[in-house]
């Protein structure tokens, strides 16, 4: 990626409040301006600017051929993107909502994920599939799924989830620049989250696959990503009242998985809770807990616990607050980390 990273001083000087949706839109715009091979396609991405307005202005600036309103058919959209990538383009596909991405599942699993492999490396597909995902916005049925477990179980895909405004820009730029296909999961309820950010002077971008410690601490590690990061940070602040100094690790991607950062944190703290919105059974937390246990068994003071969405179909909006892992549920899990053994 050729964007020249600004110094910390420049960033502070030029920063102003921006939403995650704006940062994502800016990432698309900059990628399109830099590389004529980058094409955006999806439902309502052109004239309307997307139902979340992430693609606002792109059709106007780059024309309908670069930012294309497609027929309403997700398998067709992703299938066409495969052909476009075969011809050397770098498509960025928008799936309108998490649950509306399922018709494209076969294209994603059988072709997007496998094309590099099935052609012996001759034909990688640099496709980014943007999926607004997760709950917490009062969406009615089929608008709030956490679908990351399906994607992370498929070799060949990267699965990336930004949780901050700055990462939304940086990780999307990196995903588009990647020659591997990326499922880019945008937490819907963070679209309107704000941070001081300077689009003209973006922070240096790390390659996909590096987790980051968002809050250092010594008592236990909260391992999380995407929409659950703000919950964990809030829980960590609240936990200080109980005398717990919690470390919060933001994975930023499930694939690749940053074992080093996670294991180093848990070896320091000796305790870990995985927090995500996705259902617990068969969810990412099981894989993460297993990896942590395999690597940190002799450092662990308690079993790795999971705080996840219930194993239920996503509930109606008036009930969703009971389903989503909140601060209290996180703190309750932290309380169950066998502290009595220490005293």
């Amino acid at each position: 990626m050729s964007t020249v990273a600004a110094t910390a001083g420049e960033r502070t000087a030029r920063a102003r409040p921006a939403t995650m949706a704006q940062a994502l839109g800016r990432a698309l715009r900059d990628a399109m301006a830099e590389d004529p091979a980058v094409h955006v396609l999806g439902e309502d991405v052109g004239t309307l600017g997307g139902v979340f307005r992430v693609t606002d202005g792109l059709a106007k600036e780059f024309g309908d051929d670069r930012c294309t309103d497609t027929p309403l058919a997700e398998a067709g959209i992703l299938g066409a993107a495969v052909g476009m990538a075969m011809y050397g383009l770098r498509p960025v596909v928008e799936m309108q909502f998490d649950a509306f991405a399922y018709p494209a599942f076969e294209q994603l699993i059988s072709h997007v994920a496998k094309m590099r492999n099935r052609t012996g490396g001759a034909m990688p597909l640099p496709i980014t599939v943007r999926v607004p995902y997760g709950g917490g916005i009062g969406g009615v049925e089929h608008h709030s799924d956490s679908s990351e477990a399906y994607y992370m179980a498929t070799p060949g895909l990267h699965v990336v989830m930004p949780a901050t405004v700055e990462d939304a820009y940086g990780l999307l730029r990196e995903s588009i620049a990647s020659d591997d296909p990326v499922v880019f999961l945008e937490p819907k309820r963070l679209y309107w989250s704000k941070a001081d950010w300077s689009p003209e002077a973006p922070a240096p971008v790390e390659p996909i696959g590096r987790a980051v410690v968002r809050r250092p601490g010594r008592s236990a590690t909260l391992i999380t990503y995407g929409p659950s990061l703000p919950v964990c940070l809030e829980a960590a602040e609240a936990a200080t009242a109980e005398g717990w100094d919690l470390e919060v690790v933001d994975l930023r991607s499930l694939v690749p998985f940053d074992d080093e950062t996670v294991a180093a944190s848990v070896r320091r703290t000796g305790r870990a809770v995985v927090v995500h919105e996705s259902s617990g059974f068969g969810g990412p937390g099981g894989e993460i807990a297993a990896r942590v246990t395999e690597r940190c068994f002799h450092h662990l003071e308690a079993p790795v616990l999971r705080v996840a969405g219930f194993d239920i179909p996503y509930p109606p909006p008036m009930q969703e607050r009971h389903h989503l892992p909140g601060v209290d549920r996180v703190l309750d899990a932290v309380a169950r980390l066998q502290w009595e053994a220490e005293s």
Partner: protein
Amino acid sequence: MTVQELPGAAAYRPTPPPAWKPLTDPAPLLPDPEPYRVLGTDAVADVDPELLLRLYAELVRGRRYNAQATALTKQGRLAVYPSSTGQEACEIAAALVLEDRDWLFPSYRDTLAAVARGLDPVEALTLLRGDRHTGYDPREHRIAPLCTPLATQLPHAVGLAHAARLKGDDVVALAMVGDGGTSEGDFHEALNFAAVWRAPVVFLVQNNGFAISVPLAKQTAAPSLAHKAVGYGMPGRLVDGNDAAAMHQVLSEAVARARRGDGPTLVEAVTYRMEAHTNADDATRYRGDGEVEAWRAHDPISLLERELTGRGLLDEDGIGTVREAAERMAEGLREQMNADPALDPMDLFSHVYEEQTGQLREQAARLRAELDAEHGADGESPAEEGR
């Protein structure tokens, strides 16, 4: 009393809803009532005899290729072979109508089209031998990987043709699918996208009568598969798929139309799968000999041979020469396929991602250690668990 009978309502005229207007006139899009034929009709007089002879030689070579590949399954040299015996006219015509820069999107039954396009048969057959998913570089040959999930290659053809047109390149994509594949959602979505984008694509449906065991009548209630084109706003052509001259003409016209920028065409080739679905299938469970025999009388090679010999363009010597060339091809294929392919198990990890992830590096090290132990070699010690 109706509205029109009300006093003062004399000026009322029913009008269509305000937003409605027809997008396309359906009449020119309709297929012929019967499969279009050239051989045995007056139209054959317009066909270059050299083309007929070329088609004949390719059909005979194609039939021999199918027979040889089927034989290789019996010798354990191919894991499976879905034969296109009886469908050679479709396969050959699809390959011959394309320019070098054009793209072919074959299904798993279409290795013959890829071979007729110039691909080394061994490279075309690696999928079915089981040593590599795709034995060739698709971009080098402009042949997409042989596609097993039905109809999923069709949207790829649309996207590729669309991308080429956006770049200003004169490239046509020809995508092949069977009658069963037309029931898949991807068939529908590909045709719809192609028509909306006016993408330079030709969709060739080989209606060979069966989707494994399920006959066409259980697959669709459409008047013909070619009629489906009308619903998308593209022309549908119905052709005798065993008439090589008709196949070549209709596909050439569809390719030319796409090249002109007039958009996609759906071609239904009516043909017959003379063999079972694959060597692992038993066709006697779902169809009778009588049906197969009726189609044998309508064999693509016999139809063309009759035309050529009848007009004195081909004699016994000519037939012999063509058969000898086909035999040499089969011999070469046999020889190449009798050699065991060289395989490196470590390749399993080579092309999952551009750069191996941490867990793939761990797993590769584990396999390396297993292999070293298996061969009693003094390999490096396996990576420590949990690092």
